[in-house]
């Protein structure tokens, strides 16, 4: 399953348009990302940041254009995807099993996100910021090449933000790709930022 040695991770979104319902959400969008890139996807609410991430994740079909990705992808969005009744450790272990990851990888991810103290607490008791950290820990556990993070800084205190920055920088340094969708600038240096505008109304 691990494809780190295999071809380098890359994303190539070419002239993509997306119609959702009757609405044109994205139009003529072209994005390329290579190994080591950190991209800040910025723009106002409803401009299609989440749509772009879901498109790259393969969860949405483009109405026109093409998308090619190389490497395994992990997504952390508003949906936690962790069982509310399980402890943080067990909920993460479920995805570790799904990804064929080891218990060590999960423990390391818990440590990276400073969640060891909460490992035995059921997910449903976590606060907003703690949930965010847990979902980032899920991404860390997955050992994916491409990280798609949707508003990862929401609800995080400054110490947690610094931890996240560190994890993102480290991932890019080892050849990964990180896309951060956020309305506010992340505190780290970004390779380049991608500004999404609302397409005009002439659908």
């Amino acid at each position, binding site marked *: 399953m691990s494809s780190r040695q295999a071809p380098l991770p890359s994303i190539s979104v070419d002239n993509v348009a997306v119609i*959702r319902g009757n609405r044109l959400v994205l139009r003529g969008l072209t994005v390329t990302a290579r190994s080591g890139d950190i991209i800040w996807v910025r723009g106002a609410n409803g401009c299609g940041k989440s749509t772009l991430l*879901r498109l790259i*994740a*393969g*969860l949405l079909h483009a109405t026109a254009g093409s998308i090619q990705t190389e490497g395994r*992808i*992990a*997504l952390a*969005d*508003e*949906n*936690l*995807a*962790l*069982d*509310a*009744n399980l402890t943080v450790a067990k909920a993460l272990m*479920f*995805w570790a*099993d*799904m*990804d*064929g990851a080891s218990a060590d990888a999960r423990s390391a991810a818990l440590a990276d996100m400073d969640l060891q103290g909460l490992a035995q607490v059921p997910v449903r008791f976590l606060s907003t910021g703690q949930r965010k950290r847990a979902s980032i820990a899920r991404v860390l556990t997955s050992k994916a090449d491409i990280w798609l993070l949707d508003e990862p800084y929401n609800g995080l205190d400054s110490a947690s933000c610094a931890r996240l920055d560190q994890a993102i920088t480290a991932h890019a340094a080892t050849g990964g790709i990180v896309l951060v969708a956020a309305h506010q600038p992340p505190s780290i240096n970004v390779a380049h930022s991608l500004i999404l505008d609302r397409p005009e109304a002439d659908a």
Partner: protein
Amino acid sequence: MKAFAALVAREVRVAWTGGGLWLPVIFYLAVATLFPFVTGPDKALLARTGGGILWIAALLATLLPIERLILPDRQAGILDQLAMRGWSDELVATAKIIGQIFAFALPLLLATVVGSALIGLPEAQLGTLLLGLALALPALSGLSVTIAALTAGLSGASALGGLLLVPITIPLLIFGAGTLSENPGNAMQLLAATALAITALSPFAAGAALRAGRT
């Protein structure tokens, strides 16, 4: 394979911790208890109609888990995460159906022993009833996952689910009740054929429904 087993185990665990495992069983026995109030406690009448009553109760119990089968997983992003890991919708549906066989079909089969005692079913018929339900319950599990995928997130999902499920289960009910009648004929073979066909097709139907329901 390990991942598939983990997903099936998760289905059973979610049913267990969410109380979804006991609810259909208790409902099943409660419906079976209602019928004697309607027909009167006449032993002969109950023995004659009791098997059919349990069949109807089993069909109705199928409706109970529908709301918790797909929608919570879709809302929590679990289905998205599985899709990103290359799981086909059919495979997810298969895991959910197998999970339902453990978390719904087996407990209901055990409860049938209690239910048939309540209704005073002749002991000779208990074996036939258990065999018939053992054939039909996997098919009902498949149908409940399919209907859950069709109605996930729609307003009035549970009433809608009932409206969709009832006509489709009529063949199972006819052949199932037929196995208990005085001249069963080839009812058991027909039940087996119908139930196996529905069980085998349901992962594809449920998978297509999951795909169609993704907005």
